[in-house]
């Protein structure tokens, strides 16, 4: 994007779930509000709006981030994936199916964030991103319950469905490595 300066609104374009989008936004609009209020992609949720709950977790250029703590104008040219781009009711992603099978939710409010976070988290393990619970920093971490719990700690579930969330993630992770 060309350097620009404005106090009212600015043009920003990025791709969301593979589709190019152009918006005219006040620079105060967060990526989360751009997705929800301007593009009407309401899958990503607003829990805390302060980076504390993970309900807004979105995948940007392959990495999971909190969409509530990022300004939309900071994402010019980015590739953004939301839960809507991961699966649809008639074509569920295997992790969505595993959440249903394992009862990985009650109210479902945290679920889109959990699923986006988990998919990007498994790729982080693949890229040898270390974790707090890893014993040997030089080895790639295994996909264990302890690793999943630690790496998913940025996603809070008010309903406390944690055990079932871990079970769902473990199931598809095992499927992938088998």
């Amino acid at each position, binding site marked *: 994007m060309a350097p620009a*300066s404005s106090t009212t609104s600015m043009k920003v374009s990025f791709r969301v779930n593979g589709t190019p989008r152009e918006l005219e936004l006040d*620079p*105060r609009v967060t990526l989360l509000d751009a997705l929800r209020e301007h593009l009407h992609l309401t899958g990503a949720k607003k829990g805390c709006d302060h980076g504390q709950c993970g309900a807004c977790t979105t995948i940007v250029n392959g990495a*999971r981030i909190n969409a509530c703590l990022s300004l939309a104008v900071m994402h010019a040219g980015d590739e953004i994936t939301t839960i809507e781009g991961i699966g649809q009711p008639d074509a569920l992603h295997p992790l969505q199916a595993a959440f249903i099978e394992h009862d990985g939710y009650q109210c479902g409010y945290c679920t889109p964030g959990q699923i986006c976070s988990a998919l990007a988290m498994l790729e982080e393990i693949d890229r040898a991103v270390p974790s707090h619970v890893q014993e040997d920093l030089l080895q790639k971490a295994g996909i264990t319950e302890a690793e999943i719990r630690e790496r998913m700690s940025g996603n809070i579930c008010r309903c406390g469905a944690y055990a079932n969330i871990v079970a769902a993630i473990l199931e598809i992770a095992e499927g992938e490595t088998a």
Partner: protein
Amino acid sequence: MKAFSYERARSPQQAAAVVAANPEARFIAGGTNLIDLMKLQIEAPRHLVDVQDLDLHRIEAKEDGGLRIGALVSNTALATDERIRRDYGAVARAIMAGASGQLRNKATTAGNLLQRTRCPYFYDTAQRCNKRAPGSGCAAIEGFSRGLGVIGTSEHCIATYPGDMAVALRLFETVVETVDAEGAVRMIPLAEFHRLPGTTPERDTVLEQGEFITAVHLGPPPEGRQFYQKVRDRASYAFALVSVAALLRPDGTGRVAFGGVAPRPWRVEEAEELLPQGARAVTDRAFRDARPTAGNAFKLPLATRTLAYVMAQAKG
């Protein structure tokens, strides 16, 4: 949030010049601390200079055997770098002990150093706070001070520097590289980077308005085993009550820095000389001038025990 204008920086010096010329302008990197504070109107910049396009995303080997870490290297990328995991394990451990996977993907090396305190009264704009509103007083000193500082504080502010990474960085010869509006480069030892509050707690660091961090330099990896032990109220995704970064050699000597206790990562070289005498000797010296409140005095024995635990692991 207050309205602001926004631009993308084209060079470090250009960014520095814009922010130096406008006291109401701020740099924005990952945004994970600044946007949070802007939503609460604790920070209310009128202009943001987004530095993400600058070529500061690399970690380069230096001739002296150390590393030059670009200011925009993310916390995740830094902790994943093989040289960091192998030679500066305490830094990788400290980063992974902080925040969450999502936040670490956005958080940058420079932004992490500059994260502001987590004092609950700083965050509550209805409260008195000298750091947020200079001269208004400090609600924490007579208030809920469990998470606040025990040493290096003043009667004007008892807040801590809340970060983890910088505590581990204190084990190495770490230097912060900056550039100003004229292009002048300054090399600031990390030991002198964070300020003690004194009578001006509103200034967290020695940086001038518009001074821009370009890199963080690490000295060559020293010998010894490295540790980062963080004690917090839950097992993950919480700030430190106390943390200990340590470099321990087989002969019992080493280096130690404490987090969660002071307005800056707390390292006292004379205390390290007492390592062969045990944890208690070290913390007695390191915290000799401590002035805890009734609410946070528990941090002193906790620091001793955390260090003892780390020293036991080094032997084991």
